[in-house]
């Protein structure tokens, strides 16, 4: 290998080691220490922070995060599958239709989350309109609950489901569908026995790619869930700010990181990374 190429990798190595892998290592060390009286971390070394992950107090939040992420992932796939199917078969308009999915995604996550606050809050558009129309006399509690968070997560990560499904469905051989129809299969039979098995890799990729950011979400549950709909990300943030329990926050982060890596590893092992 050439010297120049090796030299070119140095700056990226420096940033990765000092500001990504190094920090993760510090978190590993912190997770094995004890919380100091004034915050911070002190010896002795302990595994207690990991044992606390099983405490029902936090278990509820972990379980809820899993559930919310799972429901949001399902929602994304239900919305994305027909969409991806449609785009994959729309000829020259493909690029335009895909861009229409991606454009809001790339612009601003914060603004997109705020758009839902604007719609859902007590003085938001939906409640204002319903009140003005005389359909309700008091604003409906639409914001600051699990439902709002799930809508926000689906809204936020829908493109992560559309892209892998689209690239899978685009390669789907149309003649197979025609053959099924010719042989007398009903549309739902074709879907169940032909389309779904052939798009299993796309579905797996979509599932993992949406589930990961949903599970690690911070901003969406923070803004749309308020204090009432905490997820793992909020618990982590909480440990590093108000609770000042860095060791436990570190253990939580690593547990989350382990799940993310495990899911990715499973996906790559199974589908060879071609879907990414």
């Amino acid at each position, binding site marked *: 290998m050439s*010297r*120049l*190429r*090796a030299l*070119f*990798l140095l*700056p*990226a*190595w420096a*940033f*990765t080691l000092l*500001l*990504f892998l*190094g*920090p993760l290592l*510090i*978190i590993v060390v*912190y997770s094995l220490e004890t919380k100091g009286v004034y915050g911070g971390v002190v010896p002795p070394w302990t595994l207690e922070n990991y044992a606390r992950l099983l405490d029902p107090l936090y278990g509820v939040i972990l379980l809820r995060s899993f559930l919310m992420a799972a429901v949001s992932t399902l929602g994304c796939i239900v*919305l*994305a599958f*027909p*969409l991806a199917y*449609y785009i994959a078969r729309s000829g020259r308009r493909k690029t335009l239709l895909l*861009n*229409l999915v991606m*454009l*809001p995604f*790339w*612009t*601003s*996550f*914060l*603004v*997109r989350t*705020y*758009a*839902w606050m*604007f*719609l859902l*809050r007590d*003085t*938001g*558009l939906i409640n*204002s*309109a319903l009140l003005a129309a005389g359909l309700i006399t008091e604003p409906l509690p639409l914001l600051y609950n699990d439902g709002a968070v799930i809508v926000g997560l689906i*809204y936020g990560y829908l493109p992560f489901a559309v892209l892998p499904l689209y690239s899978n469905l685009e390669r789907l051989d149309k003649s197979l569908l025609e053959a099924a129809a010719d042989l007398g299969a009903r549309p739902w039979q074709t879907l169940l026995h032909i389309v779904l098995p052939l798009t299993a890799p796309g579905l797996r990729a979509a599932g993992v790619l949406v589930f*990961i950011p949903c599970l*690690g979400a*911070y*901003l969406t549950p923070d*803004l749309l869930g308020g204090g009432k709909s905490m997820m793992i*990300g909020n618990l*982590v*943030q909480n440990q*590093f700010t108000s609770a000042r329990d*860095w060791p436990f926050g*570190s253990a939580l*982060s690593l547990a989350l*990181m382990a799940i993310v890596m495990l899911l*990715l590893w499973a996906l790559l092992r199974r589908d060879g990374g071609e879907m990414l």
Partner: protein
Amino acid sequence: MRQRLLPLYVLSVYAFLHVPLLILCAFSFNSSRFTLWEGFSFVWYRAMWNDAALAEATWNSLLIAVASTVIATAVGTLAAYGLWKKNARLLSGSLYLSLVTPEIITGIALLATFQWAFRYFHLQLGMHTVILAHVTFSIAYVLLVVMARLRTADPALEEAALDLGATEWQAFRLVTLPMLRPGIAAAALLAFTVSFDDYVITSLVAGVDSETLPMMLYAMARRGANPVVSAISTVILVALGALILASERLQKS
């Protein structure tokens, strides 16, 4: 009947994606403070324009985004070239991992690192820590875009240059780099966008002098209904949307 159902479903998914943002933008021109339409007005844009704190936060955001974009684009482009035709699994793996790491984890890990480093150096959180953090998460985006461009490049051109007596540096500088230019520009625009929009990591590693536009927007959004937030949101959507479209154009050229 079935033929109509799918387009209708697709249309409603597109509506789900776009209508909330369009409504938000539309109501930024509402003359009323409340969420009922009263009349067209620029009053919230004027309020936005006259807000000195907002101007400062925007300035900070621009400064951070420009600085981190310049550094990340250079570092990411060099890395993409270094990884071209050569596998450095650990490096590329780590960079891709940084893309899927939950932002809150990246943020607290950086915060912990900076706090730890400050025990040895007399420094504080501020613009420099925000810029370093932004460079770190932007490199992977740059790498992705430039790598995609490199995959379409013909390695034979560079080999020809080497055979004809060019040094490695000359072959890179005069043959490959010019081919990559549209990809690099697209990567820079993308890096700028992700930097300008970031809230989670920024809020953790920012100091007192480095409040950014997303941090201010977040604080205003939490405080309650405020049409100025809609006006700022509209400006951000239009500006970043234009950058993304430009980036897309460049990637396809």
